[in-house]
């Protein structure tokens, strides 16, 4: 991870994420649920976008599509110039490993692995040597302020600390895009602010492009801009 000067959004550069006419339909038996309707959205490099909206409006669905966890039913979706809606499952997995970091509401750490090993997980998919993996993980843990907890198991950490370990895991392979689905949804106010400040720092100091789904207007204040999703359609907020 290279330390760089505070980045600004660069409107003249091509956007990192380009979404055109994107629809997602889930079929449950006979039932067809259209979760996203013809969404159009550009996300510039260096953006910190907060996605808000009522429960069931399709926030997670949109986030998962952008992160390459699922494929759209219709429309196009490119990230950094690559049409990820056209990738095979295996290619998509490789693409995720190289390009996206994930932060979930419930941290999703592996319970039997130490913080250090949890952070190292994404690096197992790279060609890095064991020593280098350890070093990179140590740097990431340092960055989230948990160097002294490297050997701890997840159940020995507070919720806020676990979420910071999860953030370290998300950034350890230095992806350009971070997606966070209600990262503070399970945290008290104080821990939530710590986590949000950290995310903000990653955006401002390290130029990570962030997309964060949240229910909390206070959390959204940490972002650069907020979009509202309602019944599968983007509305300006």
């Amino acid at each position, binding site marked *: 991870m290279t330390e760089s000067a505070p980045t600004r959004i660069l409107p003249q550069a091509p956007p990192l994420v380009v979404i055109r006419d994107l629809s997602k339909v889930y079929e449950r038996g006979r039932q067809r649920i259209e979760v996203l309707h013809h969404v159009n959205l550009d996300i510039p490099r260096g953006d910190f976008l907060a996605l808000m909206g009522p429960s069931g409006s399709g926030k997670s669905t949109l986030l998962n599509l952008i992160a390459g966890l699922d494929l759209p039913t219709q429309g196009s979706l490119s990230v950094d110039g690559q049409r990820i809606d056209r990738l095979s499952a295996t290619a998509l997995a490789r693409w*995720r490993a190289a390009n996206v970091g994930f932060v979930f509401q419930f941290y*999703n750490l592996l319970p039997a692995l130490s913080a250090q090993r949890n952070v190292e997980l994404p690096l197992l998919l790279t060609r890095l040597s064991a020593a280098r993996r350890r070093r990179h993980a140590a740097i990431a843990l340092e960055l989230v302020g948990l160097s002294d907890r490297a050997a701890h198991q997840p159940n020995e950490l507070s919720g806020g600390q676990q979420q910071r370990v999860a953030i370290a895991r998300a950034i350890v392979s230095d992806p350009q895009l971070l997606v966070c689905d209600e990262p503070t949804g399970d945290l008290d106010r104080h821990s939530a602010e710590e986590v949000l400040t950290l995310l903000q720092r990653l955006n401002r100091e390290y130029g990570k492009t962030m997309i964060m789904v949240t229910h909390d207007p206070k959390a959204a204040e940490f972002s650069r801009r907020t979009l509202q999703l309602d019944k599968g359609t983007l509305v300006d907020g």
Partner: protein
Amino acid sequence: MKYLPLLIAALLRKKVRTLLTLLSVAAAFALFGMLDAVRVAFEAPRSVVGIDRLITSSRLSLIQPLPAAYRARIASLPGVRAVTFASWFGGIYQDPKNFFANFAVDPATYFDMYPELVLPPAQRLAFLKTRTGAVVGQTLADRFGWRVGDRIPLKATIFPNRDGSAVWTFALVGIFQAAAPELRASERQMLFHHDYFDEGRDLDQGTVGWYVERVTDPTQAARVAQAIDRQFANSAYETRTQSEREFQLAFAEQIGDIGLIVKAIMGAVFFTLVLLTGNTMAQSLRERIPELAVLKTIGFTNRAVLLLVLAEAVLLLWIGGLLGLVLARLSLPAIREATAGQIDLSMQTESWVLGLGLMTVIGIAVGLPPALKAMRMRIVDALAGR
């Protein structure tokens, strides 16, 4: 290899459950190790050694002796290339529990008849020259710590010594070895001079227990056997001549059944093991769906997840299975001690290889259903708890 911590972490997740599974796998493979040693031991005599040998004993029973004079008459029959003879002694060394075969043989011809018993030439000469001399197999010598030069007293059960005592003392002049590992059972016998024995006993003198013939042409063995028996038909000592092969085949049939029983037992054990372990694996997988979803999220391919779950099952089987085989290996000598050498089994390389193969196959069998499930699992569904 770098995924090993991941596998171990998966197994350590529920320590008690993993331990119980390991124990049931170990128990199954300990049983396998012992039963397979039985199978190997029984299937061993399937060799071509002795294809040209006939055994002539009394028609009435094996205990009934035959006149020593038969030797020359048998030797003169066409198709008979060589004859030797032996008599059962049935002596006891120190304690009846120390049972081993011991009998009197003709030192001049016996080892020519049994080339698979290898006695160094110098020791063979010593055996020929020493009237009270005896030779034993390597296994037997090892068992009692005998060395050439030792004096070995045997207590007679059938033939008291002429001097009135029941004890016969022999000088150990040689130790023979089986020419091939599968013939090791023949190393558990003691042989001594027929002359010394015959002169020393005051019962059945001038008789021998049985004759062994080598035929010129193995394909004519049956005809030669009939010719021998015809020679002594209607005499006071009628004979029954069998090929060693026939003898072994009859034995092997018996063994076929044992092989079948062993296979049936192992089938039942492994069937239960597959059900049990399969169930545990399925349960463990259900609990770990969110974790596997995370692995997929951060970029593990479907195939990688499949292999990871499979490897976990195979690793579990290997650890438990090897533990079981080691247990079997350690308990076989204990069984030999407990049965005073009557049950002397050992685990052959064959069993280890077969065991490892079984572990792998069972590991894949129990790991495949959950592994396929994990592979097919959709990330978004798993993350949403669907």
